[in-house]
């Protein structure tokens, strides 16, 4: 130890205890002092040689030897650094070497030039470190960052980030375009400072505070307003806000912003169109009713028209419920109540309804409405609503069938009817209550004329008659 290498046989340092070597070794740095007057290494610390892949310090070392280790592409780097150092006095380089064992390493050097009083450069002293690990980490970091930047900038949706004071940290090109401002114009500004025409920002900030506090994202938020991109034009966006974390801390809020203005306009057009179609179909039903009424001459025909008009009204009522729900299903409770609306005063007394909340499919609503209309008409003429003591119990429930799966089962049970007449001939009402429902709903239907009133029972597959959500609207 303590072997200080100098080609001229004496060392510029006195290090008899070897402490300098130890320190240099521990720090992983090599020292090289190059004598410009003799074109050879004046001094090398032992670590210098190991940097180049030797286990043992080499006896001979000169500038050519160093250059031999440098990969060809980086040889100019050292040459330029030295040229620079001869004038400025400061040497700095980073280059790749190929070690004796063929391994490529990154070496960084920092040095100073010593000059004679007349300005002639005498020596260059260089501290050399192996920086391969740092270079690798840096390169990975740069590459990862570049990838993230590319993803962020090229995203076809708006992306933004805010700090805890809701000041913009960053926006991507798409969000800048949506806002109609340069990306730089956002930085360190709150949305209300640069986008005064966005509606309800106070409420947004309120929710952002919750996001920061709880760490829970706030998704599917519709934001409305105008931005400098199209001043005065109200647009809509679908936005998702999420916490940005750094370790355990939440340091800001991120957002994904998608323009929905066009989609909203299309939805609106569709809604208007649907309203128009409904309006026209109701008009059409009214015209049909008028035509039939005007065509009736005899009293027999007028009685027919009255029955017909009732059925038409029932059809129109069920249509109304469907339109109100935007064809997404009708509550069974409401459907029955609407068909029995003339007998509202008996609800809860002579007419009892019981069953869970069921959302009927649009497909099931019309046939069932017609069925309840026929049951009600029959009841008024011949059944429970034709005599003072008559009562009607309407019940429904869900049950499991081993083969058919979940089934909706419902019944209309009349009691207290003095004289039940079993009709000799089945009319249209009977067909509606049996055949039509079987056909329309794959239902099993039973219609019995019991001693004190009729009993109608229907069982239909839930997947046909009920909305997938099943219950509550």
């Amino acid at each position: 130890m303590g072997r200080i290498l100098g080609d001229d046989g004496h060392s510029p340092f006195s290090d008899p205890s070897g402490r300098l070597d130890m320190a240099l070794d521990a720090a992983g740095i090599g020292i090289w002092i190059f004598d410009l007057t003799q074109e050879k290494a004046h001094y090398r610390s032992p670590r210098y040689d190991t940097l180049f892949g030797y286990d043992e310090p080499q006896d001979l070392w000169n500038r050519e030897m160093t250059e031999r280790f440098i990969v060809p592409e980086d040889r100019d780097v050292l040459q330029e650094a030295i040229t620079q150092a001869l004038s400025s006095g400061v040497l700095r380089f980073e280059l790749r070497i190929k070690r004796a064992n063929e391994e490529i390493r990154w070496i960084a050097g920092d040095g100073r030039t010593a000059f004679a009083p007349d300005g002639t450069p005498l020596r260059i002293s260089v501290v050399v470190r192996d920086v391969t690990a740092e270079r690798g980490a840096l390169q990975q970091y740069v590459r990862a960052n570049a990838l993230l930047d590319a993803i962020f900038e090229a995203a076809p949706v708006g992306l933004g980030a805010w700090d805890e004071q809701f000041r913009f940290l960053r926006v991507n090109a798409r969000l800048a375009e949506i806002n109609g401002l340069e990306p730089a114009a956002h930085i360190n500004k709150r949305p209300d400072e640069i986008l005064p025409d966005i509606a309800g920002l106070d409420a947004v900030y309120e929710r952002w505070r919750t996001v920061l506090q709880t760490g829970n994202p706030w998704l599917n938020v519709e934001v409305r307003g105008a931005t400098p991109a199209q001043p005065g034009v109200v647009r809509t966006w679908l936005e998702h806000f999420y916490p940005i974390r750094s370790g355990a801390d939440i340091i800001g809020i991120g957002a994904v912003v998608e323009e929905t203005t066009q989609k909203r306009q299309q939805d609106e057009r569709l809604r208007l169109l649907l309203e128009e179609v409904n309006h026209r179909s109701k008009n059409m039903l009214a015209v049909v009713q008028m035509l039939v009424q005007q065509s009736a001459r005899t009293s027999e025909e007028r009685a027919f028209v009255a029955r017909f008009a009732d059925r038409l009204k029932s059809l129109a009522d069920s249509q109304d419920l469907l339109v109100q729900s935007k064809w997404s299903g009708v509550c069974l409770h409401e459907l029955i109540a609407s068909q029995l609306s003339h007998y509202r005063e008996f609800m809860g007394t002579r007419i009892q309804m019981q069953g869970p909340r069921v959302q009927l499919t649009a497909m099931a609503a019309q046939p069932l409405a017609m069925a309840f209309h026929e049951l009600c008409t029959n009841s008024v003429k011949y059944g429970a609503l034709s005599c003072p003591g008559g009562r009607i119990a309407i019940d429904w429930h869900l049950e499991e069938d081993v083969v058919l799966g979940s089934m909706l089962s419902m019944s209309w049970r009349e009691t207290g009817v003095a004289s039940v007449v079993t009709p000799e001939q089945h009319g249209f009402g009977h067909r509606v209550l049996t055949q039509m429902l079987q056909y329309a709903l794959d239902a099993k239907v039973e219609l019995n004329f019991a001693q004190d009133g009729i009993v109608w029972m229907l069982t239909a597959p839930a997947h046909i008659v009920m909305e997938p959500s099943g219950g509550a609207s």
Partner: protein
Amino acid sequence: MTIQANALTAAQATNTATNKRVLIVEDEPLLAMAMADQLSDHAFEVQGTAPTVSRALAMIAQALPDAAILDCNLRGESIAPVAELLEAKGVPFLFHTGYGKNHLSPRFAAAPCLAKPVPGDLLIATVCKLLNVAPPAR
């Protein structure tokens, strides 16, 4: 038309409606029922009424009808697979639709297309034409 002429027509027509089986594919139950009644009233045999494509295909697989009445849109499903199968089997059919004819694939341009609601006996007349039979007396 004299009684004799009428008898002659029936004799000349090698086919009569009496033994012709018609399949009705229609998802609106009241329309299916009404058409079935109408066909029965005119001495056709109604093979069945199918509210869905799968039911219609199953019925055709069981027995080929002599003719079919097809609604174009069955609970949101296109009638095309049924029409294709019937065409392949050489069974004549007509379309009965709330949409216009241009809603149909040009492939089936040869099939008659009746717009809902169909007036009076036009349905029966068209079915008779499909089957090349004389309209039977009621």
